């Protein structure tokens, strides 16, 4: 028998989880919830390093239940806390079941550098300015014309990603669709795309092109080539 009934690990220092959500804040919120419920003696919330599932984050793992959650958003924490951590009922809709054991990283575009760290580095010539950060609605998306190319900039909740602006199916603007931070859905015929990789999901037959994007002093820059 271990020291805690429920031991929760939140990836805060892997390569992608902390760019896909404010996982440090996740830890604070979960700890506050456990404290509020008076369960600090039974439940431990730990910061964790990489689970080797990069691209599926933000990830949270709960032991001894051995339940893994992928793509967790801040709005999901309340349900994970009240249903699972405090009441033992896992949140099925968020469960991670990739069907492959062990490491399962997906290739993700390089995370946009944090503004403070990046400010010393001027963007290299291949980078073209897209917009100010605040021109993209929080957790929303907006289409921009960059050197004659239409680029959709998506705010996934904590990070910005960029992709082609038109659905590859019927050339409908993806900006009119909807995303949840992980999946982008075109509402015209519900083709879906993985925002981390651009890969097609479900009925979609082709993926979308993702562009590298970086942030520098409150401005977003895209690399249209390469």
């Amino acid at each position, binding site marked *: 028998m271990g020291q805690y009934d429920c031991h929760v690990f939140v990836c805060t220092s892997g390569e992608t989880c902390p760019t896909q959500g404010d996982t440090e804040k996740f830890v604070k919120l979960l700890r506050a919830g456990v404290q509020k419920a008076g369960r600090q003696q039974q439940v431990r919330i730990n910061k964790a390093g990489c689970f080797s599932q990069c691209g599926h984050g933000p990830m949270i793992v709960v032991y001894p239940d051995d339940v893994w959650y992928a793509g967790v958003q801040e709005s999901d924490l309340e349900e994970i806390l009240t*249903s699972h951590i405090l009441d033992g009922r896992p949140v099925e*809709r968020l469960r991670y079941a990739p069907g492959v054991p062990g490491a399962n990283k997906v290739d993700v575009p390089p995370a946009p550098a944090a503004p403070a760290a990046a400010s010393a580095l001027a963007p290299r010539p291949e980078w073209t300015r897209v917009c100010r950060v605040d021109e993209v609605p929080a957790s929303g998306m907006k289409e921009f014309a960059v050197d004659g190319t239409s680029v959709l900039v998506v705010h996934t909740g904590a990070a910005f990603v960029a992709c082609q602006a038109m659905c590859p199916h019927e050339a409908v603007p993806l900006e009119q669709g909807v995303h*949840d931070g992980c*999946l982008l859905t075109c*509402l015209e015929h519900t083709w879906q795309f993985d925002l981390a990789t651009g890969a097609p999901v479900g009925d979609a037959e082709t993926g979308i092109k993702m562009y590298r994007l970086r942030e520098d002093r409150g401005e977003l820059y895209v690399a249209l080539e390469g």
Partner: protein
Amino acid sequence: MKVLVTAKNGTRDFDCEPGEPILHAGLRSGVELPYECATGTCGTCKARLVSGRAQSQWLDAPGRRYLKTEAELLTCQSVAHDDCALEVTGTFKPQERDAATPRAVGGVIRRVRSLTHDVVAFDVDLDTPVDFAAGQFALLTVPGIVGARAYSMVNFEPRATRLSFVVKKKPGGGVSEWLFGGAVDGTRAGLFVPLGRATFAPPLSRHVLCVAGGSGIAGVMSILARACGERHFATWNGHVFFGVRTARDGFFLDDLEAFRAQYPERLAITVALSDEDVPASLRAAYPGFAFARGFVHAVAAEAMAGRYADVRAWVAGPPPMVDAALRVLLREARLPLADIRYDKFS
């Protein structure tokens, strides 16, 4: 005529009668061609003519906006003139559980009755019984009006000899104006039935969430009839959100109350009024319902927040309402598409 269709997952062939839409010929032969609305709007049935001659019957079909070349056509609006080979972009999909192979069947329009100032209900007494899954729809053709209209069945029963429908009056809306014109009782109608994938077919280990706007409640009534008949709400919850503009636009409320009364613990009915505050008289008449002012997708989003575990959702109504509900289900509820079934009435 022989029609050969190639999709990503195979090649199938079937016979096509003169004047018969290619989609209908395929479906009645058991070839599950891609389609969604079957009435020329959505573009899902787009195909490319590789060889042979085929002709579009409705050159103004809204779905033709998706066609990029002369060789492309909508199978729901096109007929073959000789042996044809087609390519489709979608895939052949297995038939929905409970759903029968669709076919053309005749019937007689009976019992046309007003439900509100702009909604009528009517039945079609069928020449031969049909099987369908709860939530499916039929294409209806009536004398003197060109083209088929899609209406969801309200009732559910195996080997149905009668199909019930509701229609909202739309100015210039051919069939709906014709129905409101009176003296249509006894008219013969043609049906192609059953169609659609927004089905509820037990057993299903899911809570049921239905979000319907206006006449979109039709398929929900069929789903509730099926679910109550199977005692689904003895184990699983049901959340029904029905949106109309004002209290005088509400209909089927007594029928919804009858379903609710069978499973008062688990089946919840919420009526959303978009254009007026909820009158006290309406609350008093249906004390078992919840009421709210607002658009039905917003009312549902507020009531369902944090309650989407193990939910399957059905959405039906006008396209803006359906899109708004899909946004909630994909973004807030984060339901997988496999757990979202919808019909857009455009």
